[in-house]
């Protein structure tokens, strides 16, 4: 709180690490809301970014509680407007459109009903489909502001149904004057979306990135493009369609093309950009990089532009025909493209904008079909705009299947600071927070910003409810490790099996085990089966396995929870960096123990990773090994952190790899785990760890009431206001 206030006062940025489940969200929200109430002119808006829809919903629920508390305490209803925003797929209430399964389809369908020219056509041809919700919103919705209150996605839908307004556009419109907005990272970080949604947000906003330990990857993904042979084939059909549509329009309605042409000659910006429903593809480049100039003459007319696209596409096709891996920088690519097909840099820079204008002129409604050509043009614009921080890698086949030709062109961003820079520049305070941000100094270095505050908090606990153990050896003194040389070692696999078997015998309810990769998990489980270990484990608990398939995994999870609810509990075998490790919480009896088999390093042979490491080393002075370890440890911490979701929760954390005991690895774990890692539990055998775990579990199983926490990790109002406590607080404030 103190650190946060300091950050807000200084109008700077902050990095805060707080253990998950200890009220991170509510403390952030309550302070910022209070700050907003106290200085309404200093901080006008809170933008809270989270990762997934369930997380967004959780934040809104917390906020609702906070607002209720305010009303109860102050006795007056405050006029705060808080709302969540998500994609059309989650917000649409149109009976036909909302029944579609994929987000892209919903967007396309919605667009085909609400685009301004479609609505204009409807005047002459009333039989065209319409969305009555949007019509209603357009007619009156803008004048009637959303009443103050807290809205989650369902509330918005309800409101929409009641009023007959489209909830999506209501929300889009309302975020401009809302006090608190909760939405996903992408609305700020992906320049394609941010340009549409978050363009007009005020500077005096506080931005919070929650669960931000992966923020660098999100940044990178939002600026990277992958092109396969299939993309190009689809692109080809797109270009053909464009060509035929142009011919058609030329015969029927040449004036329209002429008008567009005239506009481009004059270098006028789109006059109708304000039409919110029309803007369907924004420039992939960051706003300050967009050239403010007229479109160059080479791609001014529609036919020339189509010819240009065709040449560019054929060039890419010829590049994809390589037999060996090629890695080159953007300038090299541009030079080559000029030599081969005479394409200059400047028209390439305008490619995305020109395509956007063309699609609008042709009044093409089904944009989902044109995703391939859009992707290509985005690539063109990106590659010609940025000369640094990007690399182009063309791989003729995947590493695992060298005989099957599957050429891919990766245009990958290596510098996460490029995408996030405008956010830091635009908003007065940006706060990055998560349960696992250690080591803290690496984030400011990677994202290239200067934080005012940087700190890692621990929990104040009434009892030590987490018990991290590092198991380095098996009972037969074989060193346990998942490193490459010992992957196939039967002794290691057997000892891992023994560990899980012993744990399954003593831990009540659920155990979650994480492996380093799907392949590794398959190998181990197969040999456990051969050795009969699985059978023994199944005497104690049921076993469920996570697979790459989302539907299968969610089924396994559901059954796992069911099994934890009754009977002797279950074991879930899953993979670090998978779906389970990132977003699923195992509260209380769903996860009494987490076993981490091995250190979850990334696949280090990937060329994209190698290029990125090189870039980090040259530009940010971060050494390869540091980054790899950092990345592995943040994922390990994220995995084991799944089990502790509050102060009353308790859980075992077993790190089964001897490498965890080394200082460089251990030092990169979050502080709240390191604190409980005693010297005695650094290099245990399976037996010893079982012994310690038994002791811990017996202690934890004692009844634990709320009163026990009083005075330690929970304070009553009297205690809080007592002289002693106040003194302690001021002392702490002075110290830091």
């Amino acid at each position: 709180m103190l650190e946060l206030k300091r950050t807000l006062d200084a109008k700077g940025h902050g990095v805060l690490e707080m253990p998950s489940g200890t009220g991170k969200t509510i403390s952030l929200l309550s302070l910022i809301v209070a700050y907003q109430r106290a200085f309404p002119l200093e901080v006008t808006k809170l933008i809270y970014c989270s990762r997934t829809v369930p997380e967004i919903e959780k934040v809104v629920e917390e906020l609702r509680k906070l607002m209720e508390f305010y009303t109860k305490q102050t006795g007056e209803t405050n006029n705060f407007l808080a709302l969540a925003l998500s994609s059309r797929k989650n917000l649409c209430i149109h009976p036909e459109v909302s029944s579609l399964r994929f987000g892209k389809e919903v967007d396309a369908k919605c667009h085909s009903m609400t685009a301004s020219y479609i609505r204009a056509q409807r005047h002459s041809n009333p039989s065209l489909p319409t969305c009555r919700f949007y019509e209603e919103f357009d007619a009156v919705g803008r004048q009637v502001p959303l009443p103050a209150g807290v809205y989650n996605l369902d509330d918005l839908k309800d409101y929409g149904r009641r009023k007959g307004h489209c909830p999506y556009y209501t929300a889009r419109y309302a975020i401009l004057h809302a006090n608190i907005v909760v939405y996903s990272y992408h609305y700020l970080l992906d320049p394609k979306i941010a340009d549409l949604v978050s363009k007009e947000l005020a500077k005096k906003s506080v931005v919070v990135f929650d669960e931000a330990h992966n923020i660098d990857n999100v940044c990178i993904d939002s600026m990277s493009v992958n092109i396969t042979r299939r993309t190009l084939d689809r692109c080809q059909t797109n270009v053909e369609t464009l060509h035929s549509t142009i011919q058609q329009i030329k015969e029927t309605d040449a004036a329209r093309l002429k008008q567009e042409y005239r506009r481009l000659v004059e270098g006028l910006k789109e006059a109708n950009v304000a039409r919110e429903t029309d803007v369907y593809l924004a420039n992939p480049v960051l706003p300050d990089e967009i050239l403010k100039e007229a479109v160059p003459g080479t791609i001014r007319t529609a036919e020339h532009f189509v010819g240009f696209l065709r040449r560019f596409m054929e060039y890419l096709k010829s590049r994809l025909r390589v037999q060996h891996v090629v890695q080159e920088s953007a300038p090299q690519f541009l030079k080559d493209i000029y030599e081969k097909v005479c394409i200059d840099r400047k028209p390439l820079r305008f490619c995305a904008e020109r395509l956007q204008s063309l699609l609008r002129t042709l009044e093409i409604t089904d944009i989902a079909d044109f995703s391939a050509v859009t992707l290509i043009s985005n690539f063109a614009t990106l590659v010609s705009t940025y000369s640094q921080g990007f690399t182009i890698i063309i791989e003729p086949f995947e590493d695992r299947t060298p005989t099957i030709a599957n050429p891919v062109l990766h245009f990958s961003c290596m510098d996460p600071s490029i995408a996030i820079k405008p956010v830091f520049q635009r908003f007065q305070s940006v706060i990055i927070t998560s349960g696992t941000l250690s080591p803290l100094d690496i984030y400011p270095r990677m994202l290239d910003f200067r934080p005012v505050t940087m700190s890692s908090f621990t929990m104040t606990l009434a009892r030590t409810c987490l018990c991290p153990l590092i198991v380095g050896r098996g009972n037969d003194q074989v060193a346990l490790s998942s490193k490459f040389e010992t992957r196939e070692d039967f002794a290691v696999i057997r000892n891992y099996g023994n560990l899980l078997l012993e744990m399954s015998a003593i831990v009540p309810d659920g155990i979650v085990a994480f492996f380093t990769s799907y392949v590794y998990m398959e190998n181990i489980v197969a040999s456990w089966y051969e050795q009969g270990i699985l059978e023994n484990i199944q005497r104690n608990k049921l076993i469920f396995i996570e697979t790459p398939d989302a539907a299968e995994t969610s089924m396994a999870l559901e059954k796992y929870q069911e099994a934890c609810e009754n009977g002797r509990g279950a074991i879930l075998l899953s993979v670090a960096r998978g779906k389970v490790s990132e977003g699923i919480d195992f509260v209380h009896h769903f996860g009494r123990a987490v076993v981490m088999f091995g250190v979850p390093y990334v696949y280090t042979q990937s060329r994209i990773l190698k290029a990125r490491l090189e870039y980090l080393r040259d530009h940010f002075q971060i050494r390869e090994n540091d980054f790899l370890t950092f990345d592995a440890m943040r994922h390990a911490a994220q995995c084991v952190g799944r089990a502790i979701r509050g102060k009353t929760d308790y859980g075992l954390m077993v790190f089964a790899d001897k490498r965890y005991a080394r200082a460089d690895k251990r030092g990169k774990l979050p502080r709240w785990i390191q604190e409980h890692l005693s010297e005695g539990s650094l290099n245990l055998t399976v037996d010893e760890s079982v012994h310690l775990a038994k002791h811990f579990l017996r202690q934890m199983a004692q009844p634990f009431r709320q009163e026990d926490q009083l005075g330690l990790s929970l304070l009553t109002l009297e205690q809080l206001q007592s002289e002693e406590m106040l003194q302690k607080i001021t002392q702490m404030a002075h110290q830091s």
Partner: protein
Amino acid sequence: MDDQGCPRCKTTKYRNPSLKLMVNVCGHTLCENCVEMLFVRGSGNCVQCDTPLRKSNFRVQLFEDPAVDKEVEIRKKVLKIYNKRDFDFPSLRVYNDYLEQVEDIVFNLTNNIDVENTKLRMEQYQKENRDVIQRNKAKLTREQEELEELLLLEQQGNEQRRLDVLQEEQRQLQAKRKNKQALLDELEQSQLPATILLAKHKARSAQLETEIEQQKQSVKPTSLFSTGIQQNQTVSLVPIPRIEEVLYQYRPLKMDTYGPPAPDLGQLGRLGYLNHVRAALPQDTAGGYTTAMACHRAMQDAFSGLFSL
């Protein structure tokens, strides 16, 4: 690419992986064998469109769509003639119009629209602008210059890095060798027992290791000037864009005091203020110091200390 084949002998890439397709100016494909067979005499007609062709004009087909091959061929030819740069034009608008005109010509030639007229136009243009074309032949466009520069930078960076790594390795190797030699020498000459010497050696090599580690961590010196310009680079000779903005105008500083304004520099002597200040010695005046200056500053100080009640 597998389904592509020669239209004449119907061989496909799938059946003959070493098939080489060729394209001539008309944009129609033939495989290498057919070319050899049909154009033994060095010239002949296209199988598909009957255009007279020369054997020497056959090129290997680079792209899947032979039309693109043809277009690129034509484009290169046209761009050789139409090689004006953006600084040859008074404004961007005119340049863009010119670019579009070029594009039109290429489009016409590739799609066989009005070929005769277009060719005439090109010839005429070539005659009219002969000297400009000659002049621009050697010049690169500004964007290409930029690209070249970037490439150069990249190369230099890579080279530098490679050299650094090499040097570093060599230094380390040398240090280690020296260390080893020192141990051998000591063992040979010293009177101390070998175990102590060995322990010493061990400590020394550990120290060496840590030193190497530290060196790796330290930031390498950059090859940049303090202005941000790369050392020994070629600077592009593009004229600096003129900055069009209002000239700076000097406005004398006006002090706000709560009271009468402080007296001017000229007034000080007249009003007798200078009598209260030590007169400047000849040594002081050498640097441009005058008596009035100190006095003036003191006066300003005093006046700005006034308060309104």
